[in-house]
Structures are given as structure tokens and as C-alpha cells.
């Protein structure tokens, strides 16, 4: 049974279409990263899943339960860190967790959960209004973990966490996944997703631009590597006839080209050496950011041209 099943989901706010005919299935037991730039419709999709907003058309279910009709049973079995969540300023951290334990009919020990997320014993007795963003985030996670949920939904969970906190969060996600929980989390930070997600979905303009494992996404992309060669004199003829080498530029004593295959790098270097002496070599593999940009940008080539232009200015 799928952990999340979204069918032909559309949500319009007035004239604005936030989600446009989205179909998405998240399998039980996987860690799914939900990526997309701001305004792509990630939050709206999650808001529909949590029954915060009603879909214009289409349907969504989690754990086989309708997100609206079966919400009480469903919300007992999921754990959520919503986006833009708030805490009760006058209640202590421990009281927050106790409240969630009560509401979920769970039997967790609040202190054990707060230990797991790393909120110190002194801090848990302070009112949440005094918490830093990072402490609030840890508390929100503890609340989400109440009742050993079958499905964890984390909306931008790394916001407000320092690098150490972000690493602990990744470990927590892995541990929850090992326990058997499905984890669905949204992010705009690619390295967070890359580190733990089995599969990612990239949302763009309310539609799914891609769904696949990180490796497959990378393979399917002809991102290639940007090879920059410093030369003693610029060749008169630009070596642009090689297969699998694109976007060749010459300027400021540097010859650059994007090589789509490993072989092409050597061929490109050899060709340049025929015309000039190469004094230095720099190779930049296409990053996840490029991959992300290539899925989400309207004009892929325009995106790729920018790093090339900046590389020319380097000594």
C-alpha cells in the first residue's frame, strides 16, 4: 500500500493555480524528498495532505485513508513538522510533547523523545517562547515523533538548524526509516535531500518535473563537466567540432568546454594542446544545483552560461 497517493490534484487560489493536476505516489518505507523552488506548489500540496486547505479538484490519501474524511485516525498515525509552525509561548517544551502524547493516545515518555532530538533537560522546562529557532525546531521534531508514526511529513525541516543540527536530523530520518516509517520531506536544500532520500520529486509550477532516484536523475541529465584550460596563447580556431563537447568559449587566456562524457574531456584537452600549450587544467563536475536548475529553469542553456561567464574572469 502506498504511503501517499495524490491523484490529479489541482488547487487554485482565485486566478492563481498553485498545484496543477499533480499525480504522485510515495511508496511505503521509502524516504522521499520533495524538491522545488519557492512558489512551486510544495507547501500547497502538503497543506492539502494535512487537510489545511481543500483541493479544488482531485484527491489525496495517506496510509490508504482519505486526507479529509479520515483525518482523525490518519493524524493519529502520522507525525508532522508543518511549515511556519508556531509553539505555545507560555507552555514548556515538555508540556508540548505531553499535549501531543495526550492527543494521540500514545504512551511515549516525553523525556525520551526530547533526549532523541537533543533538547537539554534544562531547556525542556523553560517556556517555548524563550526558545531559539534551532531549539523550537528540535521541539517540533519531538512532537512529530510522538506515537511512533508510520509516516513522517517534514516541511522544510532543516530551516533554522545549524550544520550540526542538520546532521542530527539526517540521522534521525535514517533511524525512523530503519524503524519502518515512511519519510516525506520537502526542501530547497539539495544536499540535505541527496544525503538521505531514496527518491526525489521535483515540483515546478505546480507540476511534477521529475520523479526518480538521485542517481537516475543525474544520469538522465547531460550536465557533464566544465573543463577550463589555461593556455599560453589563445588558439585561432575554436575546437568546437568534437562530439560530446559543447558550449566552447575562448577568452582571457582560457579555453573552456562542457564535456558530456569522460572520454570527451581527454579528447578536448588533446585538441587544445594541438593549438597551444596548456599550463593549467580545472574541471568542475555538474553539481546537483545545476541539475536542479536544469529541471526548474525555463531556459537551461541560459543557466549554464552563467558559471562559464564567471569562470572567464578568474585569473
Amino acid at each position, binding site marked *: 500500500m502506498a504511503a501517499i497517493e495524490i491523484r490529479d490534484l489541482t488547487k487554485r487560489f482565485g486566478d492563481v493555480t498553485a498545484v496543477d493536476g499533480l499525480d504522485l505516489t510515495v511508496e511505503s518505507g521509502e524516504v522521499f524528498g520533495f524538491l522545488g523552488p519557492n512558489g512551486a506548489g510544495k507547501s500547497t500540496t502538503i497543506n492539502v495532505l494535512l487537510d489545511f486547505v481543500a483541493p479544488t479538484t482531485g484527491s489525496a490519501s495517506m496510509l490508504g485513508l482519505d486526507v479529509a474524511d479520515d483525518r482523525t485516525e490518519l493524524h493519529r498515525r502520522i507525525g508532522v513538522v508543518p511549515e511556519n509552525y508556531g509553539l505555545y509561548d507560555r507552555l514548556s517544551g515538555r*508540556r508540548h510533547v505531553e499535549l501531543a502524547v495526550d492527543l494521540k493516545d500514545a504512551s511515549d515518555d516525553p523525556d525520551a523523545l526530547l533526549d532523541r532530538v537533543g533538547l537539554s533537560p534544562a531547556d525542556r522546562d523553560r517556556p517555548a517562547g524563550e526558545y531559539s529557532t534551532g531549539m523550537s525546531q528540535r521541539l517540533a521534531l519531538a512532537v512529530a515523533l510522538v506515537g511512533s508514526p508510520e509516516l513522517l511529513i517534514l516541511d522544510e525541516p532543516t530551516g533554522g538548524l545549524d550544520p550540526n543540527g542538520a546532521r542530527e536530523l539526517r540521522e534521525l530520518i535514517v533511524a525512523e526509516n530503519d524503524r519502518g516509517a515512511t519519510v516525506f520531506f520537502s526542501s530547497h536544500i539539495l544536499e540535505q535531500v541527496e544525503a538521505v532520500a531514496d527518491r526525489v520529486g521535483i515540483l515546478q509550477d505546480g507540476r511534477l518535473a521529475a520523479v526518480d532516484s538521485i542517481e537516475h536523475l543525474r544520469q538522465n541529465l547531460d550536465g557533464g563537466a566544465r573543463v577550463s584550460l589555461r593556455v599560453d596563447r589563445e588558439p585561432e580556431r575554436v575546437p568546437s567540432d568534437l562530439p560530446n563537447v559543447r558550449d566552447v568559449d575562448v577568452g582571457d587566456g582560457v579555453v573552456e568546454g562542457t564535456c558530456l562524457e569522460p572520454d570527451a574531456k581527454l579528447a578536448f584537452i588533446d585538441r587544445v594542446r594541438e593549438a597551444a600549450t596548456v599550463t593549467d587544467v580545472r574541471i568542475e563536475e555538474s553539481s546537483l544545483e545545476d541539475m536542479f536548475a536544469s529541471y526548474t529553469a525555463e531556459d537551461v542553456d541560459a543557466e549554464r552560461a552563467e558559471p562559464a561567464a564567471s569562470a572567464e574572469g578568474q585569473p
Partner: protein
Amino acid sequence: MSVRTVARKDLADAGRSKSLWAVTLLVLFVTAGITALVGTTSDESTVQVFQLAFQLAVLTLPIVALVLAKGAITGERESGSLRVLLSLPPSRYDVLLGKFLGRTALMLVATLVGGVATAMVVVTTLGGGVELLVPFVGSLGLMTVAFVAVGVGISAASATDGRANAFAVGAYMLLVALWNLVQAGIRAGATELGLVEAGSQPAWLEFLGVFPPNRAAVAAYESAVAGGRVFAADPFASVWFPVAILFAWIVVPVAFGYLRFRDADIA
């Protein structure tokens, strides 16, 4: 189950608000203090001093109730804690009802303390009048719950705190401060249109006179004190009718607020 937990949480949270208690103490001080002053310095009878204290209370307690209730939902909506609460099992119905019960409990405690304190002042300074205590506190209690319902209903129907504030002020102005004008305006309009003969008092105009919760509370108190007629031939002279109006004021605003809240986008 969820409703009770939400109500308890709300009691614990709102009960820690210092500004709330400051306002309550201020109102208590003004009501009980002025009553004490009148009771000790004038030669009014016990019943008259109680009457004065009641008039003071129906002017001030609605403000306290509205201030206490107007942020019940919008406050959580703006802080984002509503998103946490609704991602847990409670439904919007549970949240609204729990909030209403929590704020009602707080308001009843404040009203009970204030009402009993005021009544004690009258009884100790003037002697007698203990039998007035139940209608005094009972009418005020029902009225404050009605205003909590209005405030919670407004809060549930409003998207922001600012809007809830505006509606709460509007509700107070309309129902408490300016109702005489509203009533006079409607009467004048109805006379102009020939619906009412000048000088006559049809039942519906009389109904307008006891329509706001504060007026209904006064009517209930006066009927109870005058003769204790729970079911008189004339509904306007009996206790049940204004009490029924007060119960309607408790149910209708919360129900209206729920319908708006149920369909709202919590984004």
C-alpha cells in the same frame, strides 16, 4: 477526549497570560470598588446598590469577555501553533469547541470571583440581600459566556487578529454601547414606514430591547429579583425568555464561527 485536552491546554496557556489577569483585576476593582463606595456613602437600599453593581458589570464584563475570546483562534492562526494542533488528531470542531470551553471556564472563574466579591461587599456594608446573590452571579455568568461565544465565533470566522479585533470592537459598540441608538433608529424607521403606530410597543420592538446579551441579562436579573417568575404569562416579565436569548447567544455565534472556520484555508 480531544476537546477536553485542547480545553485544558488552552486554560493552562491563556491562564498564564498576565495581561488577561490585569484586565480582570481592574474590572473587579472598578465594579466592586464603586459598589462599595456607593454602598457606604449613600443611603440607597441593598436592592438598589445591587442594581447599580449589575449595571456596571453589564457594561464592563462584555469587554473582558471579548478581549479574552477574540484571539482564541486567530492568535493560534497567526503564531502558527494552530498548524501544529491541526496536524495532530484534533479536528477543527474539536479545536473550536475546546477553545470555547477553555475560555468559558476562565471567564466563569473571573465572573464568579468578581460577582461574589461585589455581592459580598454589598451584603457586608448594607446587610441582607444574600438571596440576590444567585440571580446576580447567574445572570452575569450566562452573559459573560454569551460574550465569550461571540468573541470565539468572531475569532473563528476571522483570518487575522486585526480583523478579529475590529469585529470584537464592533460587536461591543453595537450590542452594548450603541444599542439604544440602534433601537431608536429601528423604531423611527419602522414608524416612518408605517409598520408601527407612534407610541405603541409591539412585541418585536420589545424583543429588540432585550436582544443583546447584556440586555437579556438585565431582563433576567430584574425578572428574578422582581418576583422570581420563571414562567410568567408575559415572556418579557419572566426569567425563561431572556435566559433562552442568552443560550441562543451562546450557540449561534460559535456555530456560525465553526462554519466559517471549517471551510477556511489554514495557509
